[in-house]
């Protein structure tokens, strides 16, 4: 049996006073590629931010297990040291600090992306477009040489050529090297170039659907919206 890399068990999370995650379950095995879909506000970003230890989100119940170790209370930096890397949906600006400076501090391996070269000399996420931010995020995640990479809306703000390029990088640098990937996508266009092992659908703070037939799920969502998913029989 393949080894489980990440397991999220009945995770309930609140931000300020509101409960956002209402018992999320998720299992990702080594080398697996998962895609997480869901409408705006369903809790996708809160889920991945919690998995990576953002102190803004309080775990009120449940566990996060990485390589068999309970990491629910581990600091974000210790999780990073275990080989977890997250590409943020909306990364913050760090004024006065160049991307190359940060990479010098965090890099575990040298990564070269032609499209990212000119970003190295720019301040982190300052005066760059949404698409450029995604490339910068991808470069940072690759530099961390992770066992588990989460790419939160990595395709948003990118034109179709860039999406293809990003998909190519994901395939070459992660999937072919058996790095487990969880990709959050809104539009699903990137899935024209990538084939996930599983697609999970999240609605109102819960993963309500899991399927290995991503084409069917995408087709259903495109045709009926997420309402259909609420009634889906393939409940976990």
């Amino acid at each position, binding site marked *: 049996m393949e080894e489980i890399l990440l397991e999220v068990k009945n995770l309930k999370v609140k931000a300020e006073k509101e409960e956002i995650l209402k018992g999320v379950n998720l299992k990702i095995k080594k080398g697996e590629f998962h895609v997480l879909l869901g409408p705006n506000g369903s809790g996708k970003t809160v889920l991945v931010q919690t998995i990576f*230890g953002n102190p803004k989100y309080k775990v009120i119940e449940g566990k996060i297990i990485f390589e068999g170790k309970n990491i629910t209370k581990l600091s*974000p*930096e210790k999780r*990073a040291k275990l080989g977890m890397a997250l590409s943020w949906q909306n990364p913050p600006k*760090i*004024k006065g600090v160049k991307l190359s400076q940060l990479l010098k501090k*965090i890099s575990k391996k040298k990564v070269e992306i032609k499209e990212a070269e000119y970003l190295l000399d720019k301040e982190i996420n300052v005066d760059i477009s949404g698409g450029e931010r995604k490339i910068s995020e991808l470069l940072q995640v690759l530099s961390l040489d992770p066992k588990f990479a989460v790419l939160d809306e990595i395709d948003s703000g990118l034109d179709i050529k860039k999406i293809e390029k990003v998909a190519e990088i994901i395939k070459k640098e992660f999937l072919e090297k058996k790095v487990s990937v969880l990709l959050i996508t809104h539009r699903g266009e990137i899935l024209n170039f990538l084939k996930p092992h599983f697609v999970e659908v999240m609605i109102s703070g819960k993963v309500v659907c899991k399927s290995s037939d991503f084409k069917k799920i995408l087709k259903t969502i495109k045709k009926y919206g997420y309402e259909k998913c609420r009634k889906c029989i393939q409940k976990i």
Partner: protein
Amino acid sequence: MVMRNVENAFRKFNFWQRDHKILQILKQKGVEIFSSEEAWEKFNFVRKFFEKKPKEGYFIWVKRQIDFPLLTCITISTPKVSQDLKNLLIVEKKIKVKAKVLCATEKENLCASHFAKGKVVLKPGAFLEYNHLHRWGKKDFVNPDYEFILEKEAKLIYNYQNLFPPENLLIRTVFYLKENASANVNLIVNGIKSKIKIQETLILEGKNSQGILKIRVVGRENSKILGESMILAKVPAKGHLDCQGLLVDKNSKISMIPALICQNKEAQLTHEASIGKISEEQLTYLRMRGLSEKEAIDLICSGFLKI
């Protein structure tokens, strides 16, 4: 580390003083360099710039165009030394010069004092880029007190950077700008367990003079920082004051008092000021990249202190 860097760069310094002893005066074509005491004896005109005969410090007079930067270095290596420097730098008409000025301690915990009273005179049309770097031990007392006199059409870029502050820092600088002169002043001070008082004054006294004064301070580890800055316009002129503070911990305090005084209705003075904290989002972002909280704070502060 400082010591090794200083030793490596030794041969390039135009003026190097350690404690009270001058270790090197490197004379180069186009520049007169003496100890202040010697200059007092040698040149009558020098006397008007000093209150009395100085005992230590330098006199540098750039008389011709040079193609190298001026390098000066004042260091302290002995405990409880108290330097009392009187420095004078004169740049002649239409000469363009870059200067790198280092004042530092060679060891930690020397409990030393560094008093430096200086005058910098830019003759008409002269240009000076003055990079002033301070690096001190945690128990030192440091008091630079400088006047910059910019004559007609002179231009100054002044960058003061103090990332390794002493226990006590009192920095006072006054800039006098004559007709069409311009000054771009950037002050960067990183407060770590320090008591810091900054007093910066830019006086626009010549028609169409222009000045920008930017101050960036970080307050960390029980620091108390008071920044008093002022632009005074006596004639039609332009001035902008920009003071930003970053308060890192709850035991530190930053007070910023920017002031604009306008004595002429044609003058245009503006200012912006803010004191903020490090955002949790930035910290979390960097920690998710594997940096410890302290490493993340250091990186954010270093970015904030870049102008």
